């Protein structure tokens, strides 16, 4: 009935690390799915605000991006800016997968978000 997948790695790769930002322990988790990236950065023990960022299909040289908050704070522009910056970096690095970004931060100042 249940059998292990011998010789096969789990299909989703993930990276997990913990850093200290201004005295707050921040857990960062990166997961790579077939069609999405998931990035979680949390200082509050939960995923916090979840944003969805994707590159728009288009023929122009400079890509455009669509970033929206799907859960949580919708009045924090720095979160949206953070997702926008991240998806642009990822797009410039060659990946066109959309990003699901979860930010559970204590402080929403400019320095913190970066």
């Amino acid at each position, binding site marked *: 009935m249940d059998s292990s997948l011998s010789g096969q790695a*789990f299909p989703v*790769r993930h990276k997990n690390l*913990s850093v200290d930002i201004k005295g707050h322990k921040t857990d*960062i988790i990166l997961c790579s799915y*077939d069609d999405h990236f998931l990035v979680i950065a949390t200082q509050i023990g939960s*995923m916090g605000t979840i944003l969805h960022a994707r590159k728009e299909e288009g023929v122009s040289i400079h890509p455009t991006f669509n970033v929206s908050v799907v859960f949580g704070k919708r009045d924090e522009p720095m979160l949206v800016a953070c997702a926008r910056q991240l998806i642009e970096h990822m797009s410039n690095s060659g*990946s066109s997968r959309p990003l*699901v970004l979860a930010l559970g931060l204590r402080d929403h100042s400019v320095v913190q978000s970066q």
Partner: protein
Amino acid sequence: MATGGGGLNAAAAAIGMESIPDGLRIAEEETPSTGSSQSQINDNNSRVGGYIDCGVHITCFSEVSNNGTLHFQIIRLHKQIYAWIGCNSAKFGHLYAAAPTRPNNTVSVTSLLGGASDNTGSGIARRLALKTGLNVIVACNIPKNSPMLEADAEKKLVQKLINLGYTRPKSDGTSS
């Protein structure tokens, strides 16, 4: 097709991981690229099974059944559980959030990404929130109109949550 490794490193580079001074990195781990372990628990700071006071616990496992291969990923944050259920693929699927709400701790569920009209995954999210008493975020790519597969996935997921100690003890005597 973009390789998973290249994309993940690109994402890591994008958040400036390479530039974080070594002194700031408290702990770091990564899934191994090869390995046949069915259940893999990455322990960040504290041990699984006891009281989890800090750290993030990631559990990944796969189950092969008659209906296909189900992949499960459970991320246990301090106040929330994230679960991803993959059916034969590693697509992200639809995203749901469920949480106990007042009054009476009834559970509310909403779809965040996709899945507006079908209920695959939303029922799982709701019942997970009921069982754990925590906010849950569930991503699920089980196809529509597969109730047997959905029930099978939920059963296996709940069993793993019980094994890991994330669920509240049941009142009917089942050990947790």
